[in-house]
């Protein structure tokens, strides 16, 4: 069942650092793009260009529909609509996603309010090099706020989200502390204390 070309180091494939990238690099070569472009895409995943799920998501949907045996068409049609209409928009502040034809859904969220990033892969998804990236905000919905599907490079996507969520970078935790002690000599509390001490000394030297 698993294609022979996929034999190799499981970790590299699981982490998406080898297979999706190498296929992408291959595709880049096939469409006669320069190798430099392929090299470029190897170093950084560009979520801005990720607006449609990868084609293998359709394969995945077909496979899971087939699990429904006689109900396969009824499972497949909503998934096909979802696949065809799914659009992502990543920008510097957040991500939005919309899908649906009869019932259209749109989800908007900002990276900063992300709380949990999951990455789940079942076995079929792993064979296809796919992953689901359900992400959550603090809303009380049970289940994911948004599930990003059809990403071939889920680890890069996860890292993209992770580095933009709160608390993942330097200098965010200690923000409130800077500037608290500007200059001791100009601190009114210090000054007042000094005045008090000076007056006390005065009092001690000249008791009334």
């Amino acid at each position, binding site marked *: 069942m698993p294609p022979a070309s996929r034999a*190799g180091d*499981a970790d590299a494939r699981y*982490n998406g650092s080898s297979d999706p990238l190498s296929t992408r690099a291959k595709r880049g070569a096939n469409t006669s793009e320069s190798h430099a472009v392929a090299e470029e895409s190897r170093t950084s995943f560009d979520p801005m260009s990720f607006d449609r799920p990868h084609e293998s998501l359709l394969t995945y949907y077909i496979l899971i529909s087939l699990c429904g045996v006689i109900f396969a068409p009824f499972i497949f049609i909503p998934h096909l609509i979802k696949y065809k209409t799914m659009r992502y928009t990543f920008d510097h502040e957040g991500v939005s996603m919309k899908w649906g034809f009869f019932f259209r859904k749109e989800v908007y969220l900002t990276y900063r309010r992300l*709380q949990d990033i999951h990455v789940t892969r079942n076995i079929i998804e792993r064979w296809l090099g796919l992953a689901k990236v359900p992400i959550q905000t603090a809303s009380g919905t049970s289940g994911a706020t948004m599930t990003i599907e059809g990403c071939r490079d889920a680890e890069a996507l996860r890292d993209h989200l*992770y580095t933009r969520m709160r*608390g*993942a970078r330097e200098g965010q935790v200690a923000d409130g502390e800077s500037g608290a002690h500007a200059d001791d000599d100009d601190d009114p509390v210090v*000054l007042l204390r000094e005045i008090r001490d*000076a007056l006390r000394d005065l009092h001690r030297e000249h008791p009334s």
Partner: protein
Amino acid sequence: MTAQVERAAEWVYRGIWRVLSSWFCVPQHPPTLPSHGGEVRSFHPSIQFLKYLKLYFWIVLIVIDLLLIAAWGAVFWLNPLVGLLLSPVFLFVIVVPDVLAYIAIHLRYDTTWYVMSDRSLRCRRGVWVIGEHTVTFENVQDVKVHRGPIQQLFGIAKIVVETAGADEGEGENQFHIGNKAVLEGIDNPDELRGLIMDRVRTSRSAGLGDERLPQKAPVRWGADEVALLHEIRDAARGLA
């Protein structure tokens, strides 16, 4: 003899792992976390957790196998010929699920990884469905530590790290996409809990995405007032 059995078991287990990793793309190495100079720890649950799981395994095994053997005996008693014919079936049903369950326990243990940096926590678990969960400590609302009676016996605990919006009971299912990161089988829960809560305590926000809100500025005296205070202090000192 036992050493040989152990070696054979290890060999079989490694073979299973090879199949899992090359055919089923199960990663063998722990997940990574970007480090910011701080130490990144990655660890499995405590080895006690494995024993804890095996205890349940043996209890269930004994109960079910005794029932199956009783059923087999009953068939024998009613009709020895049918009992004899059914013996391969019974042996299969008695032995094979046990072996599979035993392997599954080991796989569950070996595929459960916890990775902790000074900023975040990542858990990964699962063989068929591999789920990974990342939370930053900045977003953590509370930490719960559960110790059941048998867990206490083994000296392990379950730590549940919750972010805002976590639902009661959602952590029951391991693979629920929830706001709870569950660390099972931890043998130093107090240390881990302390580490996590230290990070949460140093956080200046409520953990709800408000870190850029201006802190309520303390009332400060302006330059004029400070200059005046300087004068008063110097005057007071002059008097002294």
